[in-house]
Structure formats: structure tokens, C-alpha cells
């Protein structure tokens, strides 16, 4: 269970996150929504270690995440995707996925070079896992394509797949539906809803579009200008006047941005 307490983050005078308390329980999909600029992506960046907050605590099963450099976060079962779908362009899809799994290998360069049995075992396991993920997402056909030759929708799926590779306990998704067309969004929603059950992982989905987020999640938190203004079930949030006001007053709602 992820616990965020008293979190505050400022960028040169602008408060991106203001005294946030949030619990992300295991086994379900939690959505974090809000208009553009509400601070949602910043929350994700803090959790994954890319931003350092001025104040607050982020605990995962008691472990202080803020004490970790970003490259150690994954070791504790937390993975993430990226809003701008940053795949490794010149690597193949399958290699992109395997990079998400490589942290499990602790072999140094010498052992990697000599292809010790442990290293070969890791390569086999990585490839096996990559094919599992490709099948789960239904994109086995593009396995060998170079990442920068993919269409946008395919790239999004690979980004998601990469986050699923190491059998994470918590997956942080940054606007996974942004830029996708209607049919693709429905598809993504179906895939996401299978994650807690079949992959035994909690999901924190960031989105400014209410449709997808409310559709797949069991718990919704709403942010506006860095504050949390609601934290309830999807149905409750849908009819919450504060939430509606925030969306009508500020950014867009329902329309796909990007």
C-alpha cells in the first residue's frame, strides 16, 4: 500500500502539490484525475523519484520512497509509464520490454560478456516474460520492429508493457490514454481492468480525461491546483459538485488532449 502524507512540491514559487494526502491501496485501480496543471504528473514524478518534494512523506509498505534515488524505485516493485511515451527508439520492441526486466540481473559487465549460466538464464527468462507481456497486450506481431517505427497507439502499449515486465506490485500510469482514439481507449480500458486480477498489481492511473479513469478504477482522487478536492468511489466523484466545478472552471473534460 502506497501512502502519501503532507506532500508539498513547489517550482520556483509555484506550488504544484499542496499538502497532499493520498492512499493507494493494493489490488485495485486507483485513479488520480483533475484538470490540466492540477499537479497529477508531479505526484507521479515524486513517487518514482524524479522530483524531490520540499515537504512530505511517501511510504510504500513502510519504506520511505523519498530516500531512494530514482533508479532504485523499481527494485521495490514500482514501475511507471511516461506521458510522452519515451521508448528507446533504436531498440526493438522486445528489447524495450527486456530493459524493463534487466534490473533483476545483478551480473557485472564481465559476467555479461562471458555469458555465464546465470546470465543466459536471465536472458531466457527475460525473453519469456517479454513474450508473455506481448501476448497479454495482444501485440506479438510487432515484437521485432524498431520502436521509432511504431505507430502512436502501438508505442503506448509497449510503454505499458515495459512497466508490466518485472511483475510489479504497483504500476504508475501517466496519462495512458492521451492521444488515443475512441476505439483504442476502450481497448486500453479493457486491458487495464485485467491488471489487478491477472497480474496481481495495484495501478495508479493519472488522467485528465474522466471517462477512462472513472470507468476502470475502484477509487478516485481528484486534484485541482495542487490540492486534493475529492477522494471517493467513481460514482460519488462523478456527481461531486466540487469536481464538476473544477473541470468546468479550469481545463477540459472528456475531450482528448495532446
Amino acid at each position: 500500500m502506497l501512502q502519501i502524507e503532507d506532500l508539498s512540491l513547489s517550482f520556483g514559487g509555484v506550488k504544484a502539490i499542496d499538502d497532499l494526502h493520498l492512499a493507494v491501496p493494493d489490488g485495485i485501480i486507483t485513479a488520480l484525475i483533475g484538470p490540466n496543471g492540477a499537479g497529477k504528473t508531479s505526484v507521479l514524478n515524486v513517487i518514482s523519484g524524479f522530483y524531490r518534494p520540499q515537504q512530505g512523506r511517501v511510504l510504500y509498505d513502510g519504506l520511505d520512497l523519498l530516500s531512494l534515488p530514482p533508479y532504485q524505485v523499481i527494485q521495490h516493485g514500482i514501475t511507471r509509464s511516461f506521458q510522452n511515451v519515451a521508448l528507446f527508439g533504436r531498440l526493438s520492441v522486445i528489447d524495450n520490454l527486456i530493459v524493463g526486466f534487466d534490473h533483476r540481473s545483478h551480473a557485472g559487465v564481465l559476467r555479461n560478456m562471458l555469458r555465464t549460466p546465470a546470465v543466459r538464464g536471465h536472458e531466457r527468462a527475460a525473453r519469456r516474460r517479454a513474450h508473455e507481456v506481448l501476448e497479454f497486450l495482444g501485440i506479438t506481431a510487432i515484437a521485432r520492429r524498431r520502436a521509432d517505427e511504431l505507430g502512436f497507439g502501438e508505442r503506448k502499449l509497449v510503454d505499458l508493457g515495459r512497466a508490466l515486465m518485472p511483475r510489479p506490485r504497483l504500476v504508475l500510469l501517466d496519462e495512458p490514454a492521451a492521444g488515443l482514439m475512441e476505439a483504442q481507449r476502450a481497448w486500453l480500458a479493457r486491458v487495464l481492468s485485467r491488471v489487478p486480477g491477472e497480474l496481481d498489481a495495484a495501478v495508479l492511473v493519472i488522467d485528465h480525461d474522466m471517462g477512462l479513469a472513472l470507468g476502470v478504477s475502484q477509487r478516485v482522487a481528484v486534484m485541482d491546483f495542487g490540492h486534493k478536492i475529492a477522494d471517493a468511489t467513481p460514482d460519488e466523484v462523478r456527481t461531486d459538485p466540487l469536481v464538476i466545478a473544477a473541470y468546468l472552471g479550469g481545463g477540459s473534460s472528456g475531450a482528448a488532449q495532446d
Partner: protein
Amino acid sequence: MSGVRAVAQSLARRARSGAAAPAGSRLPAAAGLVVLAAALAFPLVEGGNLSLMGLATEALTYGLATLSLNLLMGYGGQVSVGHGGFLAVGAYTTAILMTHYGSLPFIVVLLAAGLVTGVLGFLLGLPAGRLRSHYLAVATLGFGFAVPQIALNLNITGGYTGLTIAPVQLGSVTLNNPVPVYYLALAVLVVSAAAIRSILSSPTGRRFMAVRDGEDTAPAMGINTRRTKVLLFTLSAFFCGLAGYVFALYNGIVEPASFDFSLSLLFFAAVVVGGMASIWGSLVGAALLVVVQQQSAAVQGYSEAIVGLAVILVLLLLPGGLAALPRQLYDLATRGRRRAALAAAPAAPKLPPAPSPSAGAPREG
């Protein structure tokens, strides 16, 4: 004409089928073995031609140095305009060890050359990993100038005249003949290339490429970017140091004048012309430039100008370098066929079909 097209097509088809291998090493094993066999047989045919043997050995040595630079630039995304400095360190280490400890087995000296150079690469990599490309280029430029100047002024490196090396004893063979030296160079190159290839298709190699392609997002996958870059510099320097060993051996003398700026530029150009992130591209690029240098040796300046123009042309017309040529030829040859296929096919949906809830569910554990 159709014969050429067929050859190009089959070459390219085979090259593409190797695409799942480390990005860039597109030549499948069979072609590589053919080349290796040719390289092994070469002295049997031309062994008597001393200058040709020397040229071939130089091509092998520069090939390894270029490969080490390509590891840094093509696969790692960093830049170095001073790799001649690493070659110098390897060569001088070799010369110094052989001068003072003449009885050391060659493998010890070879590895020492690599390790000492590797340490220097490590030291350079520490600050270098934090710099953006322009500044990194300037820093490595300075390195490339500084090393020969230091060598010029120290006693242990023999100053202006440098150090000479007595021919090496390998068991019963004395390497005072260009043919055994050629084979030694070939052996060092082949083993190094195999090692590099092995590294590239392992987590280490993928880490290099991940940092190259997505430095900001790599930490999310557990990659310590700083450490990865330092390792990259160390490895690149190590292999360049090995090339330095061979360089010292076949030249017989190690002096500061051999490591001037134009050498670093040659390696840089060879990486670009041969193709970034391509093992065999580096080897071909280096060989090509060695030949160009030799052919235009009569009029100084021509080789420099030609190499410079080659770099510019490659950038403008064939950015992937020579390594990208098979693919370009294939695309060119099949352009007509592909256009027809595209016109005939219906617009393909971008989506995979929706699976049933239980399909494709991965096993646990």
C-alpha cells in the same frame, strides 16, 4: 542489372532477419564467417607483399580503435574527438612494460595495456558523464591533445624519440615478420569484437543503449545513468588500449608524433562513415580510411580533405553510414513492388483484436 538487384535483395533480406540481434550488427553469422575466412587466408596469398601486409595490419588495428569509439558514440550516445589519446596510452603502456619487463608474457602486456587505458577512461568518464555533447567533445578534444604532449615530455616515455620495442616472442614464434603480427592483430580484433558483441546483447549493452535513447527515462527501469556512462567510457578505453598494444607491436616504435590530432579525427570519421552502432560498419569504415590515407599519401592534405568530404556527404546523404547501405539498396530495389502492394491492400487497422478475458493471461511465478 537484375543480378545486382538480386544480390542486393538477398543481402538485405538476410541483414534484416538479423534485426532482432543487437541493434546495428545486421550481418548474420554466415557472412561474418566468410569474411573471417578471407582474412585468415589473406597472408597466404599476399604474405610476401610487406607494404600490403603492413596496411592490412594497420586496418585491423584502426578497426579495433574505431570499434571502441563506436561503442562509446554509436551504442552509448556519447562523443569523443580525442580517442587517439587512449590509443597512445595503450601503446605507451605496452612499450614501457616491454622495455622494463621484457620477459612478461604477451597476454599480460596486452591486458595491462587495456587495463591501464581503461583506468584512464574511467577517470575521464567520471566528469564526462555529466556533460552535454558539445562540452564533452571539447573535453575529449583536450584529452587527445594532452596525452601526446605529456608523452613528449616525460622521461619514461622516451620524450621526442619515443620508445622502440623489440620483436615479441610468442612461444617459438618471433614476431619480427609482418605475417605473425598480422595474425596477432586479427586475433585481438576478433576476440574483442566478439566480446563487444556479447556485451551489447546483454543487460550491460542494453543499458548503454537505453541511456543513449532515453537518458531521462532510463532510471525508471533501474538504470543508474551516471554509473552506466562511466562504465561505457572505461570499456571503450579498454578496447582502445588493446588496439594500442597491437599498434605498438607492428610499428615497433611508439612516439608522440604518431598520435596527433588527425588520428583521433580519423577514428571519428571512420565511425561516422562506417555507420554508428554497427560493428562491421566500423571495421569497414576504418579499412576504407586506411586505404584512402595510404593512396593519397603522396600529396599531403588530399586524404584529410577526402575524409572530411566523406563525413559531410555521409551526413547529408547516407546518415546511417555504410552499414545502412544494404537496407537502402534493398528499399530502392523493392520500391516498385512495395508501392503496388500498398495500393492494393485495404487500410490496416492499428489495433490488435480484443482478446477474450482469459486469453494470453500470463502465468505467475
